[in-house]
């Protein structure tokens, strides 16, 4: 009687663990969300180290051969790593061919994650992400 009850309990728990593993496998087998065009985005932040307040982010956009991509439409959204903060949005302007500049006001110290929305001329838009870690208090 006791063994039977335990066997059922263990069987039930095993089913749950199997379900969890399935979830893990399903998640691992997800297809990539998008086929990304071959482009490279690098960023520089000044001043260094970044502090709360005004920072300048310079983005360099190149294709797979290293050739600057010009006349792309870029915009930036910034998020703190912790939930509960409103994201910041900033516009980006092309300062020289393939080089884009954004002036951003960082409202809080900590880690920031930025999503760059890139509208390539004549192509679909793609997103790229970069982080500014360890922004110091003002």
């Amino acid at each position, binding site marked *: 009687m006791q063994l039977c009850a335990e066997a059922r309990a263990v069987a039930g*728990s095993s089913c749950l663990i199997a379900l969890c593993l399935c*979830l893990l496998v399903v998640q691992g087998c997800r297809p990539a969300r998008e086929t990304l065009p071959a482009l490279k985005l690098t960023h520089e932040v000044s001043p260094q180290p970044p502090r709360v307040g005004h920072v300048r982010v310079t983005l360099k956009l190149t294709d797979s051969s290293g050739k600057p991509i010009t006349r792309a439409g870029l915009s930036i959204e910034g998020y703190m790593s*912790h939930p509960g903060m409103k994201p910041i949005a900033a516009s980006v302007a092309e300062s020289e061919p393939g080089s884009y500049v954004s002036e951003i006001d960082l409202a809080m*110290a*900590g880690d920031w994650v930025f999503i760059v929305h890139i509208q390539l001329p004549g192509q679909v838009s793609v997103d790229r992400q970069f982080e500014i870690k360890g922004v110091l208090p003002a």
Partner: protein
Amino acid sequence: MFQPHRNSNPRNSFDLLRVPLVGTLLRQKHARTLLQIPLFLISIAMILHGLFGPQLAPQNLATTYTWLHFRGALVFVLLLAGNFFCLACPFMLVRNLARKFFHPVRNWPRRLRNKWFSLGLFVTMLFLYEWLDLWASPWWTAWLIVAYFAGALLIDSVFKHATFCKFVCPIGQFNFVAATASPLEVAVRDTAVCAGCSTKDCIRGVREPATPLVSIQRGCELALFQPRKVGNVDCTFCLDCVQACPHDNVGIISRVPAAELTIDPMRSGLGIFSRRKDLAALVIVFTFGALLNAFGMVSPVYALENWVARVSGVEREFPVLAFIFGLFLVAEPLLLIGVAAWLTRIWGGTRKPMVAVAVRYSYVLAPLGFGIWLAHYGFHFLTGLYTIVPVTQAALGGQPHWGTPGLAPNVVQIFEFGFVFLGLLGSLLVSYSIAFAEKVDRPSRIFAVWAIVALIITAGALLLMSQPMEMRAVTLGVG
């Protein structure tokens, strides 16, 4: 004098179960299930979004709901009412469903029938929160929720009664300690009625008259016998006792918050607090863990981590973090409480052994610890309150409308300080009551000693909350 609620005529107290609508709802047989279902559905949504949704914490339901709204709502409900989150616990919904198929016959091992194991899990949870940066990881947060469901199901499928709630669940232990400061408790309305009761259904449950082996209503699964139950520790507000009592003599009754800490009777299902080293340790970790958790959010933690890494030559985060945990959760409490217990003996004139003094007076810290948790969680909750709207909109496939995220941080900081002071006031009153209730020569000196301990912790909390907050994952060598 600060006295517990036990008066001769409890019917004069406020009783939530007698309030129209709310009371009627809570007294329904399936009230708990009704409250659990929405939280269960939300939990499933959080798991799915955490695993498959955007992996940016502020955009994800798992991280936003868990680390902002759930935690915040939890502490406010504990402050204003009682342990209603355990009542609506979604993990127990799944477990109760499973119990329809599994009928465990084993008892939880005797040597584990205390708080040591759950205390270890509570510390592990605090550690994982910092080490894995859980607040910033939807994926880990989702797996944490899955782990809770699996843990509740596994433990309660093998072991009888509410083993998971009483001996395992770290959230439950947090709620039990915090609920000592709550204004409501599940308690008998009239002790005279219990004195004349012969069935004891509140603990035994109700059996089918024709087939006594068949239970038609559970009694308290946490071994809390209502007539001898004191306070909120170990009470999940499941209301099984309310359903089981044939005399309708159990209510959700008002009382003086934290007053249960001032007395030291034999408590049903718990024993005597002053002999429970495990419970005292839980209160200590609850209190100093509140400081540690808040410390993890401000600038000095990074300076300390980098200093430890530099001095020790260790660059991996795990041992550095373990050192800081040891500092906050072992060294600091040992020093503060050890010195206070020693002073209580030599200066206050008590003849009790030092450990006994330390155990008895550790409970003094519970209100202050709760005040610090309330301040910390309340800050995130209030400053990010409205982010629930755009995050939900985005999760449902709509366009998120990011407006003001919540109340202004400088306004919320006033509340933060207020909560800490409220906790301090509670701890001062509890220490005063305990000191003056003991048969000692100089109770005022004992009160002074423990008041200083509370003031030191308060000063630490206020100092932390005055620091500019930094929300970042730990990266040794940065900053």
